């Protein structure tokens, strides 16, 4: 395994005297306790956290009351009602979800996830290859930086030309745009595993397959996850952009369509959906990361 010497976030030399008191630092990898910020009692913390969102909704309301701005900005309550009506008002057979959820939200989410999924697979596979081979990295580094710095929405036309007008140009645009953070982080993560671990793997004659699955991938995982997290928010942005043109459904389509028909309540309800979607994506991602990288959180906390 040819792994470059990298900075190792895990390594901090420990030199505590090995007395009984410090021998065992924690019996089990305890989840980090949620500490109230700055030591406030929790109701105060909750209140503080709600203050800014409440202020934003207040400002939103004030603007919607303006004589001219009110024409475009619908008030929060109307927007929320419209959101419930379009997206959440179905009967039990439709799981209480509205038509817009099925017609626009699900197709959009499907494209975003498909694009992200392709980007994760491609980014990790190529990233690992480049990470373990300095020669490949040197060869493809310029190409990667070129691809990364290209404003990918500009390529939408190219993707339409290549893949027609269905879902595929949109999915591939999302995949192409969000693959870079994952790719670069994977390369970085693989090179950061460190020479000593690579050497240990060699001395213990670990087969290449096990080195890959049990050393390279877990070792690079913290960085890979950081890359995916960036890509996740990109994928939502690109999802919207890809649906602005030549689209028959999706949240992006809905945004454009509601503006063209002066249906501003509809427009604002889509924005509410997008906010909720972003929050939901992030929440799910964090839950997965928390499980997959439990060791890493523990390791970095111990060494703080």
């Amino acid at each position, binding site marked *: 395994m040819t792994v470059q010497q990298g900075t190792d976030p895990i390594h901090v030399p420990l030199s505590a005297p090995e007395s009984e008191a410090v021998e065992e630092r924690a019996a089990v990898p305890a989840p980090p306790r949620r500490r109230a910020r700055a030591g406030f009692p929790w109701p105060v913390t909750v209140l503080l956290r709600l203050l800014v969102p409440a202020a934003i909704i207040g400002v939103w309301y004030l603007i919607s009351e303006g004589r001219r701005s009110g024409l475009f900005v619908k008030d929060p309550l109307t927007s929320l009602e419209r959101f419930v009506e379009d997206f959440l008002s179905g009967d039990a057979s439709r799981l209480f979800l509205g038509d817009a959820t099925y017609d626009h939200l699900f197709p959009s989410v499907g494209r975003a996830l498909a694009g992200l999924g392709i980007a994760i697979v491609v980014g990790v596979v190529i990233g690992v290859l480049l990470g373990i081979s300095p020669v490949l990295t040197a060869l493809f580094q310029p190409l990667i930086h070129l691809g990364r710095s290209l404003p990918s929405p500009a390529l939408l036309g190219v993707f339409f030309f290549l893949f027609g007008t269905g879902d595929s140009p949109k999915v591939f645009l999302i995949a192409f745009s969000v693959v870079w953070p994952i790719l670069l982080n994977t390369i970085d993560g693989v090179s950061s595993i460190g020479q000593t671990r690579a050497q240990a793997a060699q001395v213990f004659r*670990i087969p290449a397959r096990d080195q890959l699955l049990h050393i390279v991938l877990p070792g690079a995982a913290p960085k890979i996850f950081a890359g995916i997290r960036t890509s996740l928010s990109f994928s939502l942005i690109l999802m919207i952009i890809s649906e602005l043109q030549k689209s028959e459904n999706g949240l992006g389509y809905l945004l454009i369509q509601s503006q063209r028909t002066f249906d501003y309540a509809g427009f604002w309800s889509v924005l509410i959906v997008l906010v909720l979607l972003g929050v939901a994506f992030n929440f799910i991602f964090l839950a997965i990361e928390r499980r997959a990288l439990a060791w890493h959180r523990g390791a970095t906390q111990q060494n703080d």
Partner: protein
Amino acid sequence: MTEARVTENPAPRAATSAELLLDGVSRSYGDNLAVRSISAEVPASKISVIVGPSGCGKSTLLRIISGLDEPTAGRVEFEGTPVNGVPEGLAMVFQDYSRSLFPWMRVDKNVAFPIKHLPAKERAERVRFAIEEVGLSGKEKLYPWQMSGGMQQRVAIARALASHPKLLLMDEPYASVDAQTRADLEDLLMRIQAELGITVLVVTHDIDESVYLADRIIVLSAPPSVVAEVIEVDLPRPRDHIATKTDPRFVEIRGHVTRLLRSKEQVAPV
């Protein structure tokens, strides 16, 4: 990533009792000569210690012995067979436990990882034995980073033992732990070596440690390194930190090694 090469060893063992033989081993990087014609024998079932000043090419030498690097001249024989790739029956303990252990695996998984190919039952038995040997029973389910430095290095030793090595290489194994832990781990090593009869080769820059541990000390000079002297340490075993270290013979050998290292530092050509 290169898959480790397996050195088949069908040849009968050479008549010599040397487990490991270095014959005129040199290694240069470009014009820079790291080790210069090192010849030494590491006897079977004994503890040998290579001691030398910092930067004397000890790590280079270990890489060559473990088959990770090739000498530019000379040869290395392990059990009478030239070393070509990482030989079977060799295990290594690195100085930097926090970098050589896998922080995403619990202790038992770390120890079991090099012997993954074995049947589950034998693997479990070896892991249990190795962890018991280093005194970590009951700590199997901890992650390395939940342990002190000394305990992590015990895990690294257990991992090496689990692969049933004939030759245990240790690269400055105790340089990153405090003095008390270091003393404990030195005694642990000698006890395990006596019990299992494995051949141990320790590389260190610590003169006290080299005399305390060794049956044979191989003193290296400053770079480009040559063997300054090979010293047979005839201190009685079992040794302990008070009796052995106050033994006049210990003091004598330690003084001798110190003088060797010091004089070589001064007169060595650059």
